[in-house]
């Protein structure tokens, strides 16, 4: 694939900053609405007219790569195509209601929330769902707080959470934020949970094991039943990190595997756009025993078929100031309804097919398998970060690099179901072209992107985080 990203530049910079195009300082409160000592004197901000702004943001967008630009096999992030029609739903004026509305006056919205709780419970094999957490990590935090509250309710003070070394950083951070000590579980030779290591890691201090399944290598934890038994026998709970659920839709459900708590990354599995880093949503499902601890409020149907908010009996309280990222949840509902049973199962089947097909076409070695919706190749003698930079020149987004660390120079690749054979072949060509190139070529890449290689080390050494900081120089 030949590719050249748009590049707007001017002297020693790319598109000038809004501030460089024209800041203006204006006086505040000239009419004296407030006493002088309660107001600032001036505000200085960009002062541009709409046509200039439209051009500014259009140019910026041209220097950015999205899912519709080309393949985006960023491992663990499930960068699917985001259906357009869900945007139209989110833009409905009737979706724009205030969170403090009385429940009797927002029956439509609460009905959608109830419908989504129900969909997610079925898909995960869970008994109860909260939609409140605004991202996967927030779901983890909520789930871990639920585990803590549950144990405390049983008079059980447990101080540890066990997490495999291959897990995502948020698992560790969420456990720590909730006040737990993290016990790191080394992976077995085959990249999965080592049952012996797990046996020795769990104790009466174990509040939960957090597990991603398939794990970050794309491997299904075949011993999941034994894992569940070990954790449950120790009195702990089993937490499912739903980041990789796109591998399993219609094939297996966390609830059937013995998981007690799970979060759904709806911006991954259910294709809601997460422009530039977010927003997402991280609903949490639990088994019935844990439902009384979920965040407040949840929604339920009354006998009269209306929907009401309610606070679970032993609720942990809140993890978001209101009820989460509603517009994301609305899109999630629509996506699930669009696919239905067959579509969801097909999404996973094709995601797994695509990952396997792509792995088969590339020259890099994939040390662990059988993998599902993603695989982790090794760049071998090459530096994975350089491989990624060079891949940009072929018009594809590269994989996630250097994680999980179990694989040397990891290229964590997740094409998702949305790629065709043709685009997978092009992606494979990009991998293989780079695999055959020398270090020098790789190190001087990229050249076809808006910016050339950026020195991130230098940027971190002297942080300049605003146009004011630039002006000070």
């Amino acid at each position, binding site marked *: 694939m030949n590719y050249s990203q748009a590049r707007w530049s001017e002297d020693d910079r790319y598109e000038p900053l809004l501030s460089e195009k024209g800041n203006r300082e204006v006086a505040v409160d000239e009419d004296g609405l407030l006493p002088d000592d309660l107001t600032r004197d001036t505000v200085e901000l960009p002062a541009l007219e709409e046509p200039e702004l439209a051009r500014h943001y259009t140019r910026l967008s041209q220097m950015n790569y999205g899912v519709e630009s080309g393949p985006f096999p960023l491992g663990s992030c499930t960068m699917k195509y985001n259906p357009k029609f869900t945007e139209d739903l989110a833009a409905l004026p009737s979706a724009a209601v205030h969170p403090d509305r009385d429940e009797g006056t927002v029956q439509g919205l609460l009905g959608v929330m109830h419908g989504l709780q129900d969909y997610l419970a079925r898909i995960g094999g869970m008994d109860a769902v909260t939609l409140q957490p605004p991202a996967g990590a927030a779901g983890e935090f909520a789930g871990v707080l639920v585990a803590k509250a549950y144990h405390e309710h049983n008079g059980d003070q447990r101080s540890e959470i066990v997490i495999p070394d291959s897990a995502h950083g948020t698992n560790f951070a969420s456990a720590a934020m909730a006040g737990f000590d993290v016990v790191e579980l080394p992976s077995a030779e085959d990249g999965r949970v080592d049952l012996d290591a797990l046996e020795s890691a769990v104790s009466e201090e174990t509040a939960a094991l957090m597990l991603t399944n398939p794990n970050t290598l794309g491997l299904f934890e075949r011993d999941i039943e034994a894992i569940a038994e070990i954790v449950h026998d120790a009195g702990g709970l089993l937490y499912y990190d739903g980041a990789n659920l796109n591998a399993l839709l219609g094939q297996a459900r966390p609830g059937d595997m013995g998981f007690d708590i799970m979060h759904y990354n709806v911006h991954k599995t259910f294709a809601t756009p997460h422009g530039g880093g977010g927003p997402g949503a991280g609903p949490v499902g639990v088994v019935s025993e844990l439902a009384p601890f979920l965040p407040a409020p949840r929604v339920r149907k009354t006998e009269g078929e209306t929907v009401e908010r309610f606070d679970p009996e032993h609720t942990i309280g809140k993890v978001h100031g209101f009820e989460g990222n509603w517009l994301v949840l609305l899109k999630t509902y629509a996506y699930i309804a669009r696919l*239905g049973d067959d579509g969801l199962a097909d999404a996973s089947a094709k995601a797994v097919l695509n990952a396997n097909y792509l792995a088969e076409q590339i020259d890099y070695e994939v040390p662990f398998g059988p993998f599902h919706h993603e695989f982790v190749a090794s760049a071998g003698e090459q530096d994975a970060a350089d491989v990624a930079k060079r891949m940009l020149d072929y018009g594809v987004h590269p994989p996630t690099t250097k994680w999980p660390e179990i694989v040397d120079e990891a290229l964590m690749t997740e094409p998702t179901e949305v790629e065709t054979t043709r685009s997978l072949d092009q992606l494979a060509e990009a991998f293989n072209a780079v695999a055959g190139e020398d270090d020098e070529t790789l190190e001087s890449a990229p050249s076809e992107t808006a910016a050339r290689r950026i020195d991130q080390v230098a940027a971190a050494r002297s942080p300049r985080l605003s146009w004011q900081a630039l002006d000070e120089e």
Partner: protein
Amino acid sequence: MSGHDRGSPYAPHTPAETEAMLDALDVDSEADLFDIPDAVAFDGDFGIEARDERSIRREVRRRLDRNDDLVEFLGRDHYDHYVPSLVDHLADRQEFLTSYTQYQPEIAQGFLQALFEYQSMLVELTGLGVANCSVYDAATALGEAATLAARVRDADGQRVLVPEHMRAEKRSVLENYTAGVDLSVETYPMADGAVDTEALAEAVDEETLLVYAESPTVRGVIEEHLGDIGALAEDHDALFCLGSDPVALAMLERPADVGADVVVGDAATLGLGTAYGMGIGLFVTREEYLRQVPGRLVGAGEDDSGRRAYTLTLQTREQHIRRERATSNICTNQAWVALRTAMHAAMLGPDGLVELAEDSIRRARDAADRLDDISGVRAPVHDRHQFREFVAHTDQPAGAVVDDLAAAGYAVHRVGEHLIQVCVTETNADELDGLVAAVEEVAQ
């Protein structure tokens, strides 16, 4: 559409392509690619029927039409300002909307620059040196401020002091965020809707880690003694965290000038409008706490061609590197909303933004005056300057007033036995006559 009528409409494989790919892998079916033990395999169905776009759009529209069509005079931390059309059209460009975290900055300069501009606008509005490019919402931003305080403050201390008037939901989030570091969240009193600085002086001690105050408050009151609050905190080596929003910040005292160490709030007051509480946590702090900031930061650097370019920076603070010692667990954030906030602010420009802030004072004042003229109503109840909203006293029980107003087509808050709260912005100002008439009807 491609030649399949079952399955995901977003998995574009034709049956022939699927066959060819399976052949290439030497398997008979996709099922052969799964490595799931039978005991945990799922062979049921979800009972979710696939539907086409049109029928889903009709269903959702019909459902949402069941929301009563009320004119909302609602605020209390979630505000409706008019969002110019440019914001929707440009933020929805797929290069923005469908991208993700800028792990490869060379191909993501556009979004990085927009986030850098967002950060810069907040630096201007607060006078503090470091703005991150978002946390989830105002409540989680406050939670992050408290854990930051626990990390940066030398002395031992467990107390986080929060004002009597604040959303209970926000406080609950704060309590959850501080659970891991064992802080105790305690209330200090307010007098006539604003911080009771004498009582606060009594409450602050050496055990105090963080003092939180809002201006405008959740009741729309503009605090008049922020400098004193900042000084009280500083005297006790506690951090001062100020809650505000970008519209109010365009007019009120600069946080840096009143001794604020952290500013939090909902930046989506610009850019999103009413979204059932969805927002974006703004988080701005002093440069000295840079290495303790939660979430992502965009910095300027240089590329190989010698040009200025942008990149995520200081990532060693973050969970993917520092894991359980990270400054926060946040990964996916609200970046796209930050883009919208920046676009909206840019559309307003400094004149428009200041005017919006000034109008927020005028509208609250004028609406309060009009309600105050109605017998059986006293507004505002606090003898203070108000921003966007205010609390009114009703002789009738507030519950009945709120219900009767809803029946007449208007939504206002009930905040006490005889207290309602009313928020006016440019999106509902045209309906104020109707609200006043309705209050006249129901409040006598």
